[in-house]
């Protein structure tokens, strides 16, 4: 059983084909890196996997469960979480409340208009644990507006981790971080247990290559090279379209 399988994923916007015939096989527990130049279709691929956009053709399977017709919101309940390249947190809320919203998304309690959210100790506790995992517990009650960019990136990850996903999609988690912050995020990702499968898009090769076990190189919407870290780095096509630029 694979954690994530995609078969023949295609998506066009008007005349522009953003992904073509993307086939992925990610094993459970694997750390997969997806690289490629800007506009290669990486983020579109993520959006197809989590259902934010519908493919024109092709299928997505999560742990043998066919997802293609499953609405985006249900996929979160099936163990699929993601972070965003452009930060999309809840700016008026505190860090704690951001993570609580993430937990609430999978909790039946989210429909309840009669109880107080503040009184839900178990949610607050889980949220604090998630913040602790990313080293931000001390900022739990700070409003999102008063945090740094690097902290926000980590809150993104905390929100995804809080949902206890089986498959975690990370869209450029290192983008815009300082060297110190990169080190922190790297440690944090390394500490994620193996029962979470991770697929990551990243531009920053130093940190990303170290993290990845298998790498898929995308170019013009296609996966052109795929293999282990050593294989991909050695492949001349990779150098040509990505590393050499």
């Amino acid at each position: 059983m694979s954690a994530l399988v995609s078969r023949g994923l295609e998506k066009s916007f008007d005349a522009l084909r953003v992904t073509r015939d993307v086939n992925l096989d990610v094993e459970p527990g694997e750390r997969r890196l997806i690289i490629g130049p800007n506009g290669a279709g990486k983020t579109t691929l993520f959006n197809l996997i989590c259902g934010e956009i519908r493919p024109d053709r092709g299928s997505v399977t999560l742990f043998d469960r066919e997802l293609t017709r499953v609405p985006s919101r249900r996929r979160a309940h099936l163990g699929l979480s993601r972070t965003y390249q452009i930060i999309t947190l809840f700016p008026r809320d505190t860090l704690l409340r951001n993570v609580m919203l993430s937990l609430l998304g999978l909790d039946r309690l989210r429909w309840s208009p009669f109880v107080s959210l503040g009184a839900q100790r178990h949610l607050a506790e889980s949220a604090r644990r998630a913040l602790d995992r990313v080293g931000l517990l001390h900022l739990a009650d700070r409003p999102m507006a008063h945090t740094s960019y690097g902290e926000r990136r980590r809150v993104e990850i905390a929100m995804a981790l809080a949902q206890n996903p089986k498959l975690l999609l990370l869209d450029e988690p290192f983008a815009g971080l300082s060297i110190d912050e990169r080190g922190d995020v790297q440690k944090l990702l390394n500490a994620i247990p193996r029962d979470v499968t991770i697929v990551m898009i990243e531009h920053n090769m130093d940190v990303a290559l170290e993290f990845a076990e298998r790498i898929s190189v995308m170019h013009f919407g296609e996966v052109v090279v795929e293999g282990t870290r050593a294989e991909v780095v050695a492949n001349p096509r990779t150098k040509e379209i990505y590393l050499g630029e």
Partner: protein
Amino acid sequence: MTGRWLGLVLALVALAALPAWMPGTYYVNVSSQILIYAVFALGINVLAGYGGLVSLGHAGLFGIACYAVAVSLAAGAGHLAAILVGLAVTLLGTAVFAALSLRTTGIGFLMITLALGQILWGLAYRWIGVTNGDNGLTVASRPAPFGFSLETATAFYYATLLTFLLGVLAMAVFANSPFGASLAGTRDQPRRMTALGYNVWMIRFYACMFSGLLSGIAGILFVYYNQFISPQSLSLTASAEVVLMVIAGGTGTLMGPIVGAALVVVMKNVASAYIERWNFLLGAIFVAIVIFMPEGLVPGTVRLLRWAMRSLAGKAVPAGGDGGR
């Protein structure tokens, strides 16, 4: 915190004793009007404040409740039955209203609710067989729950006050509930909310229903207060007045719509008594508030007070997020 509780208790005492300290029946009636519109504004605020969806058609929902009660009574139903029919029909109407208008959000929502409000107004105006058209329908008597007649201004005031307090309580519970948080999340980051596993459409739909329920309750109070209903109450002006109450007071706050309702109702009464230019005033205030105080009067004042306290105390007051919630 104690200051807040003290304020609440004082406000409750003042409201409970209001008929005693108001100079006359007219003022008691204006107070009832304020409370009725406050309930209506609370309903609009569910969507505009917490859901980020500004409706310009809610007077239609309010009107459905009014007409349903008036028509039921005219058909010989008792008060309880009429009220229940009123609520049921309003909820049904709201469901259709929501299903259509939630095809879009933002400006699209605003536009479609406006059109739907106009349809309901048009029905009230033209469907003479049921609504008696422009002449409106009268309601012969007010109910007497548990043998307590509401015919006097004071008695009706207390019934309205009780309903109002229940409405505020419901709103307070709702705003702090997980569902309230979910709704606010769909306002700020709908895409993110979907990815987190929320059914954004359904959340908005339920919010519409809650909003419609409060509007319907306000409508029922209104039709019994006036003992008359005409298409005027369903007009775009009527919808806009309530939206103005909410944005004047401050969207997404508990007190904002209540303060806004008081402000607009008092101004409307004063304006129609002295200057007859209510529509101009309404429009001018609308423009002024949107341009100069978009956050509304309540958050604006809270901000000023905080600032003043901080300056006086000479030390930092913890920055809580409650002012904007």
